[in-house]
């Protein structure tokens, strides 16, 4: 069975939903961040799939989007992990359900 656009989009959709489930359900802030990275990867896969299969006068545009997403993902990972380390230094935990200082 030759893989077509539906197969690649299916993998991208399943990967995105797995990342969503991980980032919504994990207790550890680093686990949440790993879910976000999976979702970004799934979006990249979908963009590259459309760039390869779609009838377009300018197919390189999808690749350009992916380059920018990679850049922003790297910046996001650096800042989020620095935040996790800073929060751990102050609170001795990075469990997102125990970071409830603002709860009255």
């Amino acid at each position, binding site marked *: 069975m030759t893989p077509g656009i539906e197969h690649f989009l299916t993998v991208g959709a399943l990967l995105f939903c797995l990342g969503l489930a991980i980032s*919504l359900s994990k207790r550890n802030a680093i686990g949440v961040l790993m879910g976000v990275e999976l979702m970004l990867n799934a979006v990249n896969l979908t963009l590259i799939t459309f760039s390869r299969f779609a009838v377009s006068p300018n197919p390189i545009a999808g690749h350009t989007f992916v*380059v920018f997403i990679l850049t922003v993902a790297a910046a996001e990972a650096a800042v989020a992990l620095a935040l996790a380390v800073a929060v751990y230094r102050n609170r001795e935990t990075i469990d997102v359900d125990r970071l409830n200082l603002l709860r009255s």
Partner: protein
Amino acid sequence: MEGFGPSFAFWVLAALTLVAAGGVMVSRNLLHAVLFLILTFIGVAGFFVLLSADFIAMAQVIIYVGAIAVLVLFAVLLTPRSGRDNGETRWALPGILLAVCLAAIFLFVVHDTAWNTVDEAPAGLDARALGTALLTTWVVPFEIASVLLTAALVGAIMLTRSPEEEAEDALV
């Protein structure tokens, strides 16, 4: 995309990527979850090669497998007391339910749409075309991205400084 090779590569990569992503979900030890995450990134890089995006695949391996995975590993090792447990909150079940519903919608849309596709890979998907596009059409977002990277670098350094280091800087 004809022939046995691409089909075989697709199914192997799909199994590898989705099983590794499931491993991130179910593994109890956060270090094992990070290793599964690296495996997922490698699988996605394989998909990029299969979709004739060579430069993006190289960037994926260098940035995700090389840089982001090492960052996540460092963060796990720098938060020792709470860093090993990969458990769920009590909102896990609603989150998983939402993800399953979203997956059902996505799969319905993907398989119900009549996609207007090409069989052969379109010309001009190489690194030369990507570089030309980045430095002509999208040169302003390109420069903004470099400013964003610098800001993120400075911000990450500022966030992780200890109070002693800040006190030393204040004296000078």
